[in-house]
């Protein structure tokens, strides 16, 4: 799957991958010419198809471990069946272990080697924790369908953090809608 910015006729670059959260991946692409961003939101079945292919959206930062796929995807495993093999976290919904963010620099091969895959998520979570939501904004968010609500929340909070906002109001949500097309 590829994305092209219709306005610039330029291939879009993968900017960030978040999730799976409640079975949904949020993959953000940006146009290198006009900086227009779009987010591809997968439903749980689409996410599962990607998992079944054993490929990482956003690319791989580290080589795969032995039997990584089986260890992560098999629902029930005998205790002690694999000695000395590092456990691979099951892709439980919303777990940090199943989240593999990738920056634009990494996507373009500009990164300086492997990075901690969780630091970006952890930093963002800390910044988002300092935000306050107006009740009316929370009410607006409640109207978003259940399965994409956590991603919508993340997207709005990220938007707010990037702009230095400390409070999320209905106006901020309108701004997000206008900019990101949520």
């Amino acid at each position: 799957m590829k994305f092209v910015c219709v306005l610039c006729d330029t291939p879009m670059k993968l900017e960030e991958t978040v999730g799976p959260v409640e079975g949904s991946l949020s993959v953000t692409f940006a146009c290198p010419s006009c900086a227009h961003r779009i987010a591809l939101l997968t439903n749980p079945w689409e996410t599962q198809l990607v998992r079944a292919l054993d490929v990482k959206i956003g690319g791989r930062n580290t080589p795969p471990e032995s039997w990584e796929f089986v260890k992560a995807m098999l629902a029930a495993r005998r205790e002690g069946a694999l000695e000395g093999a590092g456990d691979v976290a099951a892709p439980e919904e919303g777990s940090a272990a199943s989240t593999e963010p990738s920056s634009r620099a990494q996507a373009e091969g500009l990164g300086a080697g492997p990075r901690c895959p969780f630091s970006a998520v952890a930093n963002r979570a800390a910044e988002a924790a300092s935000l306050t939501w107006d009740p009316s904004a929370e009410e607006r968010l409640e109207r978003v369908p259940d399965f994409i609500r956590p991603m919508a929340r993340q997207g709005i909070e990220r938007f707010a953090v990037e702009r230095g906002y400390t409070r999320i109001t209905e106006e901020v949500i309108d701004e997000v809608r206008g900019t990101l097309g949520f």
Partner: protein
Amino acid sequence: MKTYWDIVGDGGSNVAAQVEAQTARLRGRMAHVRRKVAVVSGKGGVGKSTVTANLAVALAMDGLRIGVLDADVNGPSMAKLLGVRGRSLKAGPDGILPPEGPMGIKVVSMDLLLPSDETPVAWHGPAQQESFIWRGMMEVNTLREFLADTAWGELDLLLADLPPGTDRIAHLTGLIPDLTGCLVVTVPSEVSHLIVKKAVSAVRDARWAPTLGLVENMGRFTCKHCGASEAMFPGGDTRAMAAAMALPFLGSIDFDPRLAAASDRGVPFLLSHPDTPAGEALTRIARTIQAWMEAE
């Protein structure tokens, strides 16, 4: 506006390179395995796994370094048949170290990972009801990892015991790089022949590897009291079927209750009963395969 084919790359995930890396890993590992043979049938219940386990033992007894991949992810039996059930797999620097059964046979089976007899293979997913959509891909990727990430070492032969179902043959034989050939197992019944003929066609249509020949299992039964020998299944002439399909007929293995009992104990029949008609037939078939391997 640009089309899909005008754009180089996929914007960042590099999925094509990830798939190429998987294939390279698999090819690298399999380069240390001289021959790879898939044991297929299409039909369930013909004793394919029992034949595989005992052929592995027969070949190992002749000094060959043998590995067995239980490719039946959902109905794994090879760990039981080769007496390694419940053993642990160890992670080594070169991959997962498989347990060794009789004569040093290396075994990998999904059964080694399952927590209990009653536990079916289930995958993490949004809902098991719709798992038919992605389950096939899970199984193929599991087998790819079993092949690529297991520290098989240098092997003379890897036997892959495939699950029943003619549809699986093309998927799974296509997964094994440079597959040497397929061995087809049947029982001498018309019903079995009906399905097995389709399996032979599937192997031929897939064009991955030649069909090495046809093995008849449970051909005859000898009464232990009076010594009379009679056909287990009236009607099916496997030798004629092999001739009609231009396949080598590799031999017929008698039904022997001791074979089933040995399988249940996880002790290969050939080790304890090499001089029985069934044991001798298995040894002859193994020698034919070995001669074919040496001639190749």
